[in-house]
């Protein structure tokens, strides 16, 4: 039983990272019907921005390992996350402005190819800038085991990851469902044309959507690197793809669906790795995807469109 709880905790922690990335996929899909394959690479950029920021701080202020466990360690981690989010938001904005906006009236497959192009650009550009060999993400928060009753161990980084993810999601929820921006965004995902007709500044809303989703990916990148500290320019590929799968599972374009899909996927992966075998772990996401789509062709919470004759 305690093993099960342990797996559940690990799964939720992983799932919350997937969720942050999946939310970005789903928001961008909502406004542009674009599967932004470069999203996983923003996750990678987030990790690297964090990495260089930490190096910079260490360079100027020295490296004090005693602060890792204290509240200042948590504070520092938060700062790194915020800096990464700002950096990736800026990157997302540039990406949208230069690569996607010129294609607003093109067929969707062009957008997709462009997204693949942007993704390759970030990956190879990353290899050029950061080098192809993996870097080691510095420890900014020491892993403190918090023993819970029943032998379950809660890791301090997991607490950080999970709580940060929840806070970000609450912020996002507020933004999407309680603000003018959120209303505009939802109007656009309903129909871009109608939204522009009722006077919504479509370009601005799409740009902000990109910035928010990129920032979420950036935060996820740092959080992922805190628990899996080996980072390299291709690190975004697989988590990006899985988060995408999570978004589709829940019903792409649907924000609650992305959360649900990501949580399910995180849990399923840890259970399979824990109870069956870790070698098929990477295939599991896709197996779940196929089964769900065959049963519910538009995802768990997705709505189906009917062709009118």
């Amino acid at each position, binding site marked *: 039983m305690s093993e099960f709880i342990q797996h559940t905790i690990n799964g939720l922690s992983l799932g919350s990272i997937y969720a942050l990335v999946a939310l970005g996929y789903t928001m961008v899909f909502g406004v542009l019907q674009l*599967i932004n*394959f470069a999203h996983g690479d923003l996750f990678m950029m987030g990790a690297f921005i964090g990495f260089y920021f930490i190096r910079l701080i260490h360079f100027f202020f020295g490296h004090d390992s005693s602060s890792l466990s204290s509240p200042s360690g948590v504070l520092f981690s938060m700062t790194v996350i915020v800096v990464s989010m700002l950096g990736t938001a800026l990157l997302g904005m540039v990406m949208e402005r230069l*690569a996607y906006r*010129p*294609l607003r009236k*093109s*067929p969707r*497959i*062009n957008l*997709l*190819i*462009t997204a*693949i*192009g*942007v*993704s*390759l*650009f970030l990956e*190879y*550009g990353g*290899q*050029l800038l950061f080098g192809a060999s993996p870097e080691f993400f510095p420890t900014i928060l020491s892993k403190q085991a918090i023993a819970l009753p029943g032998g379950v161990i809660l890791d301090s980084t997991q607490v950080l990851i999970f709580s940060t993810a929840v806070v970000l999601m609450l912020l996002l929820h507020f933004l999407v469902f309680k603000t003018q921006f959120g209303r505009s965004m939802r109007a656009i995902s309903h129909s871009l044309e109608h939204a522009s007709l009722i006077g919504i500044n479509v370009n601005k809303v799409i740009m902000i959507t990109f910035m928010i989703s990129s920032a979420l990916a950036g935060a996820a990148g740092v959080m992922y690197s805190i628990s899996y500290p080996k980072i390299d320019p291709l690190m975004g*590929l697989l988590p990006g*793809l899985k988060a995408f*799968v999570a978004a*589709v599972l829940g019903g*792409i374009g649907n924000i609650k669906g992305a959360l649900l899909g990501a949580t399910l996927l995180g849990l399923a992966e840890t259970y399979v790795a824990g109870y069956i075998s870790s*070698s*098929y772990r*990477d*295939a599991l*996401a*896709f*197996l779940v*995807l*196929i089964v769900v*789509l*065959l049963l519910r*062709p*538009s995802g768990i919470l997705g709505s189906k469109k009917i*062709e009118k*004759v």
Partner: protein
Amino acid sequence: MLAFIAIGCILNMLFTMSFDVLNDFHQISFLKPMREQSLISPYYYSVLLLLGINIILSTSLALLNGFTGLFTMGHAGFMAIGAYTAAYVVKSYLPTAAPMLQLFTALAVGSLSASLFGLCIGFAGLRLSGDYLGMVTLGFSEIIRVSLLNIEAVGGARGMTDIPQFINLGMVTLIALIVIILVKRIRDGRFGRAMFAVKENEMAANLIGINPLEVKVRAFVLSSALAGVAGVCFAFSEGYLSTQTFTFVKSFEIIAMNVIGGLGSLSGAILGGAMLSLLPEVLRKVQDFTGVDIRMVLYALTMILIMILRPKGLLGQKEWKWLSSPN
């Protein structure tokens, strides 16, 4: 059959300038690896080989993506199935057979096994439309890849080695030409018309007596069989297989070939395949100039620029004269 051998010999002589083919015809030496004997440098030899394989892949995807309008993101999976199955069968059951027998077995096994998967995925995935079909095919291909990675009989994570290298540049060129002709014939016949009909208006096609499911499954089977052939060419010319070759990145690359050339155009698929294969090599010159390896960055940039400047791809719906369609 004889024509096949003859053309193969001629092509190979052209590429290798080696005339000993005619001396030991009984061994059919045009099937032997020629990379080292070739007149052109091994580097260009490899580039041209990859070019041929990519054109087969791109052309085969045109059947699905371009003609039938089925958005799939798992073409590398079919290629992997063809490559691995054929390599496994030839290595385990025909290790010492005549090269000709090995070749035809490989082609048959590779295309059949891939098309079998195409059939399954076709039936399973065709309830879905648009992006969702793409996602399911992507999922299938990743499952195939991870499974191959875990099957020890095909080398697992180490990859599959010591595959007889009997396919050379001449063969690949010949096979690519045949594939192009076959795809053109399909496109121009009644099945091709039905494919375009389903792509453009599935309901209208349905209401004039075309079963869209049948058309789509056919497209899937044919396309995957040809992707399997590309896999066979790859396996038996490289001599080594690793699952790293068949990631979803490869699938995306094949889609990009189609879209950059002009989605729906066979000539476009060929042009796009050629472009994306040669571009990194052309850009190598730039690397000599800049000193850093920025060619893949430029490659990505070129992709983005083409999409922005030529939204319909380089050729749009147009076809070259020798590939023009009566429809």
